[in-house]
C-alpha cells in the first residue's frame, strides 16, 4: 500500500528538497556578505528577462536534457551511469571527426551524420563498462568514473597529436567547414522573436525535445522499456521472467552513452564550431542532478534541465555584476543533489508521517 498519493511523491517531495537546497544556498550567499534576494532578482533578470538570457538558458538546458536523459535511462535499469562526462567528451570527438571528414555542403546533411557520430562514440565509451558489468560483474560506478578520466586523456591525446592543425599551438581541432554550422535561434526565430546573433542556443534544442519524447516512448511504450523497468525494480524477478540481464545492462548503458554523447552536437557543432579541451564542462555530472530532480521522467528532466540552465546563466550574470564567483552554481548543484538524492528520506519520512496521520484520523472519524 502506498503511504503517499502519487502527486506528493512526484511533486511535493522534490519541491521541498529544492526549497531546502535554495534556503541553504541563500544562507551561503548571506555568509559571503551578499544579499540573496538581490542575487535572485539578478539571476531571474539575467537568465529569463530577455531573449538574450533565454538564448543562453536554453543552450545550457539542451546539454542538461541530453545528460539528464542519459542518467535517467540508466536509473530505470538500476544502473548508475556516472560516466556521462566521459561519454559526452567522446561524443565531441565523434562530432569533430564527422564534421572534419567531408566538406559538408549543408547543415541538414551534416547534422544527422554528426548526431550519429556523437551517439556512436558516446555509446562506445559506455560499452566497455557495460560489458564488464554484465559479463565480469565489475561495479559500473567505479568503471564509468575511471572511463571519465581515460576519456579526458584520449581527447587530450587526439587534440594535441592528431586533430591540432600543424600551425597552431592551441590544443584544439581545426575550424569545421561552413556547411556544418547549425542554425541558431537567431536564424530560426528572427521574424518572431529577436534573439541576438551572439546567442548560442541552436537547433539542437529541438533535437533534445525529440529525445525526451523518444525516451518516454522507449521506457513506457515498448517491450524493451518494460523489461528495463522490470529489471530495475527487481533483478531476480526479471531473470525469473526470462529477461536477459546482459541485454538490459548493455542496452540501457548503450542508450545512456549515446544520449550523453549527443550533447556534443549542441556544444561542439552548434556553439564552438571546433573541438576544444573540456567542452563538456561538467554537464555530464549535472545530468545526475537533473535526473534526480526530474525523478527520471523525461518531462521532469526537461523541467529540471531548464532550471539548471537558468542557474548556469544566472550564475554567470552573478559573477559578472556582483562579487559572487561562478562556483556558487556548483554549490547549489551539490546541494540539489544532496537533498533530492542522498537526503531524500529526510524529506520523505516526515511527509509520509503526515499523510499516515491524516489517513488514520479520517478512518477514526469514519468509524
Amino acid at each position, binding site marked *: 500500500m502506498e503511504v503517499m498519493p502519487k502527486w506528493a511523491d512526484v511533486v511535493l517531495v522534490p519541491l521541498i528538497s529544492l526549497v531546502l537546497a535554495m534556503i541553504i544556498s541563500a544562507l*551561503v550567499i548571506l*555568509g*559571503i*556578505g551578499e544579499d540573496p534576494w538581490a542575487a535572485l532578482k539578478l539571476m531571474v533578470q539575467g537568465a529569463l528577462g530577455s531573449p538574450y538570457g533565454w538564448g543562453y538558458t536554453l543552450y545550457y538546458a539542451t546539454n542538461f536534457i541530453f545528460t539528464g536523459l542519459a542518467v535517467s535511462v540508466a536509473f530505470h535499469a538500476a544502473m*548508475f551511469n*556516472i560516466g556521462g562526462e566521459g561519454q559526452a567528451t567522446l561524443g565531441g570527438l565523434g562530432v569533430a571527426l564527422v564534421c572534419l571528414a567531408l566538406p559538408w555542403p549543408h547543415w541538414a546533411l551534416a547534422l544527422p551524420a554528426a548526431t550519429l557520430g556523437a551517439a556512436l562514440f558516446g555509446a562506445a565509451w559506455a560499452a*566497455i*563498462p557495460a560489458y*564488464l558489468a554484465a559479463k*565480469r*560483474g*565489475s*561495479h559500473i*560506478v*567505479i*568503471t564509468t*568514473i*575511471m*572511463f571519465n*578520466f*581515460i576519456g*579526458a*586523456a*584520449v581527447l*587530450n*591525446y587526439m587534440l*594535441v*597529436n592528431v586533430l591540432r592543425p600543424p600551425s597552431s599551438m592551441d590544443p584544439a581541432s581545426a575550424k569545421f567547414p561552413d556547411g556544418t554550422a547549425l542554425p541558431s535561434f537567431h536564424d530560426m526565430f528572427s521574424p518572431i522573436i529577436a534573439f541576438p546573433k551572439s546567442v548560442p542556443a541552436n537547433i539542437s534544442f529541438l533535437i533534445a525535445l525529440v529525445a525526451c519524447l523518444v525516451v518516454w516512448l522507449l521506457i513506457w511504450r515498448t517491450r524493451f522499456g518494460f523489461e528495463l523497468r522490470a529489471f530495475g525494480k527487481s533483478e531476480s524477478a526479471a531473470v525469473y521472467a526470462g529477461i536477459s540481464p546482459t541485454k538490459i545492462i548493455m542496452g540501457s548503458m548503450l542508450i545512456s552513452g549515446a544520449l550523453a554523447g549527443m550533447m556534443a552536437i549542441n556544444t561542439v557543432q552548434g556553439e564552438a564550431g571546433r573541438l576544444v579541451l573540456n567542452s563538456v564542462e561538467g554537464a555530464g*555530472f549535472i545530468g*545526475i542532478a537533473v535526473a*534526480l530532480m526530474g525523478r527520471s521522467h523525461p518531462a521532469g528532466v526537461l523541467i529540471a534541465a531548464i532550471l539548471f540552465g537558468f542557474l548556469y546563466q544566472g550564475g554567470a550574470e552573478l559573477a559578472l555584476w556582483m*562579487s*559572487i*564567483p561562478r*562556483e*556558487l*552554481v*556548483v*554549490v*547549489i*548543484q*551539490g*546541494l540539489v*543533489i*544532496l537533498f533530492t*538524492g*542522498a*537526503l*531524500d*528520506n*529526510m524529506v520523505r*519520512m516526515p511527509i509520509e508521517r503526515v499523510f499516515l496521520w491524516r489517513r488514520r484520523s479520517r478512518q477514526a472519524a469514519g468509524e
Partner: protein
Amino acid sequence: MDFSTLIQILDSTLRLATPLLLACLAGLFSERSGIFDIGLEAKMLIAAFFSAAFAYSTGSVWLGLLAGIAASMVFAAIHGLASITFRGNQLISGVALNFLASGMTVLIAQNWFQQGGRTPSLIGGARFEGIELPFAIGPNEAAETGRPLSELLSEAGPLQLLYSELISGHSILVYVALAAVPATWWILYRTRFGLRLRAVGENPAAVDTAGVSVIGLRYAAVVIAGLLCGIAGAYLATGLQAGFVKDMTAGRGYIALAALIFAKWRPWYALGACLLFGALQALALRTDVAEAIFPFKMPVQLLDSLPYILTVVILAGFVGKAIPPRAGGQPYVKER
C-alpha cells in the same frame, strides 16, 4: 638514468603517494564497514582549503592541520547522516559532497582572500618543513661543517645518499602516512573493533544480532575516514604545495579509490598500489626520464591515465579478482 635521478624519482614518488595513501586508507575504513565513499576527493579538498587558510591566518601549520581535519570531519558527518541515518544512496551523497567541496572552497577563498579562489602562499611556520633524520646529510650538517650541501652529497656513498635523500627530509605527515599502514592493519586484524568493523561490511545483520550497534560502527568508520582525509588534504596544501589553489586535489580522491580496488581493500597492498600510482605521477612530471625508460614514445596522457586503466583491468577480473565488502553500498535496515 643515473643513480641520483632514480633517487629523485623515488623521492617524488613518496611525496606524491602520501596523499593517495592517506585517502586510500580512509576509503578502506569506510568501505570495509560497508559505506561506499566516492567523496574522498571532497574531504581532501575542503581540508586542503581550511588547513591552508588557518595556517596562513594563524601562522601555525598545526592549527591549520586541526582546522583541515575538522572540516573533513564535518563532511564525513554529512556523508554519515545521509548514508547511515537516512539510508540514502551513498554514491549520490559522495557525488553531492564532491560538488559542494569544489564550489565552497572557491567561494570562501574568494570571500576571505580575494585572490581568485586561492589562499596566499604559505611561508615559514605556516608550512610543514622537511625533518632531517639523525645521521642524514642535509642543510643542518651543511651548516655545521660550513660546506655546501651539494659537495657533501657528492662525497656520500650510495647507501648514505639513499638514506639522506629518500628516507630523510620529508615532512612529518609523510611518516604519519607510512605509519598509518601498519596501524590500519593492526586495528583491522588484531583488535575487536577491527573484527566488528570488517563484519559489519560483510554481514551487518549478524553483527546486529550479536548486540553490537551497526550504526555506531559505521559512524566510527566514517569518522576515521574523515580524519585520514583531513590529514591528506592538509598535506596537499601545507606540505606538498605552499597554499590552496582551486580544485587542487585534481582527481586524487578517485585515484585513491582506484588504488583501494587495486589493493583489494587490504592495507599493505594499499601501500603498494599507492606507491605504484605515485610513481606514475612522478614519471608524468619527468617526461625526460619516462622517455628514457620506455622503449617506445610514451604519451604523457597514457602515463596519466594508467592508474585508471590498471584499475579497470583489475575490476574486469583479468588479473586476480577484486571482491568488494559484501554489504557495501547497502543501507542497513533493522527489520523489514
